[in-house]
């Protein structure tokens, strides 16, 4: 414990906020994570079958920009794309002749644009796959799907987990019994086969994958939150809060939940790695987002079919999945270390 010195400014004396002590590993993981999220958010501006800005019949259009805006959750759905570009039959490449600025990779992820299995060249930086689609474009849009699945599935799992854990841990008694049985029931099922069965039933689609992964992977988080509540609701400050007239749910939200948020964030970070792997596994089996959609798992499946003739096709999706999952683990580990109170005083100089 440090005593407050009235004459000196108050400073955090723990290393967690001191950026200079983070290792190069953690720094590169943070950089890669930011890079992946940016790619995911702006995928159509990086690789798309329509230009970013173009002039068509005398008017200016921004088809790739409006497609990017369309991906914003909730509000994106209201944005309408300009007319000729909205139709799938409209081919921007042949119709446009005047001014047009194309994304760096001017090919859509599902566009059959060139011959099959071209090797890397200046036009197709990573070559093309067995059906003549640009691999780099598919990688970029695959990153978008992986990040979406990872982030949204974990937000969902985090929400359900915190809710169940809070109710079980704070109210105890019958609520705790019910919560624990629910958690144990969910944990008894082998998650992957449960997800497989549900995916067969509800069909392909990103939201389906997010929903299914999110609603099966919350158990660990719920157990963490419950344990955190059980241990901290016995502490003196909870009695103190009661003695000031605070109500039960108020204590749970205001005093106990903040203490449980740290472990939850760590669990969500590790869970994100699992979610991305699960999605890749599902896509490999052709049950995930959809066989046409560009996913890293699906690309790996396509590449695996030609492993004898074109083994190089495996490299990009394999590396991407590996780096992404590793990144989540490194970040989760660093988060765990900097949120651990026992290590906060000079303990995390890694």
């Amino acid at each position, binding site marked *: 414990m440090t005593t407050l010195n009235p004459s000196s400014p108050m400073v955090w004396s723990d290393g967690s906020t001191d950026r200079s002590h983070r290792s190069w590993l953690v720094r590169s993981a943070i950089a890669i994570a930011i890079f992946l999220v940016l790619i995911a958010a702006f995928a159509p501006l990086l690789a798309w079958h329509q230009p970013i800005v173009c002039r068509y019949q005398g008017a200016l259009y921004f088809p790739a920009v409006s497609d990017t805006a369309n991906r914003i959750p909730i509000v994106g759905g209201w944005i309408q794309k300009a007319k000729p570009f909205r139709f799938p039959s409209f081919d921007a490449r042949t119709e446009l002749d005047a001014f047009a600025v194309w994304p760096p990779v001017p090919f859509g992820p599902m566009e059959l644009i060139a011959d099959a299995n071209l090797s890397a060249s200046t036009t197709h930086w990573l070559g093309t796959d067995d059906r003549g689609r640009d691999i780099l474009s598919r990688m970029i849009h695959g990153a978008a799907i992986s990040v979406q699945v990872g982030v949204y599935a974990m937000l969902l799992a985090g929400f359900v987990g915190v809710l169940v854990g809070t109710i079980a841990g704070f109210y105890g008694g019958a609520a705790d019994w019910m919560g624990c049985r629910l958690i144990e029931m969910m944990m008894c099922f082998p998650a992957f086969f449960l997800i497989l069965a549900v995916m067969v039933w509800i069909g392909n689609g990103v939201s389906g994958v997010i929903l299914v992964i999110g609603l099966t992977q919350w158990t660990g988080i719920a157990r963490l939150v419950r344990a955190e509540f059980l241990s901290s609701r016995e502490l003196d400050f909870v009695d*103190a809060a009661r003695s*000031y*007239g*605070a109500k039960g749910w108020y204590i749970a939200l*205001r005093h106990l939940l903040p203490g449980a948020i740290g472990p939850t964030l760590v669990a969500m970070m590790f869970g994100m790695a699992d979610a991305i792997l699960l999605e890749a596994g599902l896509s490999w089996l052709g049950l995930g987002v959809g066989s046409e959609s560009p996913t890293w798992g699906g690309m790996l499946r396509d590449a695996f079919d030609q492993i004898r003739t074109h083994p190089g096709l495996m490299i990009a999706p394999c590396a991407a999945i590996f780096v992404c999952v590793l990144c989540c683990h490194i970040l989760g580990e660093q988060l765990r270390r900097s949120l651990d109170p026992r290590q906060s005083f000079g303990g995390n100089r890694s």
Partner: protein
Amino acid sequence: MKTAIEQPLIEVTDLSVRYKRGQAPVLRDVSFSMNCGESIALVGDSGCGKSTLAMSLMRLLPADAAVRGSIVFRGDGEFEPMDLMGVDERTMQAVRGKHIAMVFQNSVGSLDPVMRVGNQIAEVVRVTQGADRSTAHKMAIKLIERVGLPSPQRLAQAWPHELSGGMAQRVGLALALAGNPSLIIADEPTSAMDANVQSQILEVFRHACRQAGVALLLITHDICVAQALANRVCVLDRGSLVDNRPIDKLDSPSCHAATKRLVDAARLKSKAFTAIAGKMV
């Protein structure tokens, strides 16, 4: 002082507490009353039921405690006298903090470790008085000033782990004062402190309570602490209230044996202290 003196602020009659897993009752037919602005010290050996008495006044006992008796609370005249044993939990939540507040022994532990000190005090102000955010914050600063802490603006931004025990206990008093209560129950507020800090904290308590006209129920095992702060002493011995007399009548031969024991212990301590002080000169 808010009401006429002749009406007691709180009147405890035949209070008995028994834990279901325990054999003997923890409290046996305890009766006493307190006037507005009065300070009473509840003295007794460890395990005689002092803290149980405090927690039962707040109705914060664990679920397996069986309580009998009545606690009639008159408050500052804002409401009809009520029996705290009979009211529902909702009413009790409104009483806690606003009319009866508590200061705990574990001063650092009774602060939320993940909340800044100023926010915790402001929160109590908001819960008990319904003040808005900025008013509550200003009042929190004033309260920190009132309990004698230096540079209140900066201290409001401190985290509980940055405080020393004495500072945390002053914050604890500020938290208790935040609801503007008519009774503060202090459960061994200075037991974990060294003698120097102890006397400072006691002085702060006396000053703050006198200034606000708050009645103080001080729970302690040390009769010296009681002498410093209280004008009346209640002695608990194995769950029963055996003595209730003004603080200056502790010498009288009619004192209960338990009282005599506590007074003798305090005397022995001060004698030893004089001996040491004599050697030092």
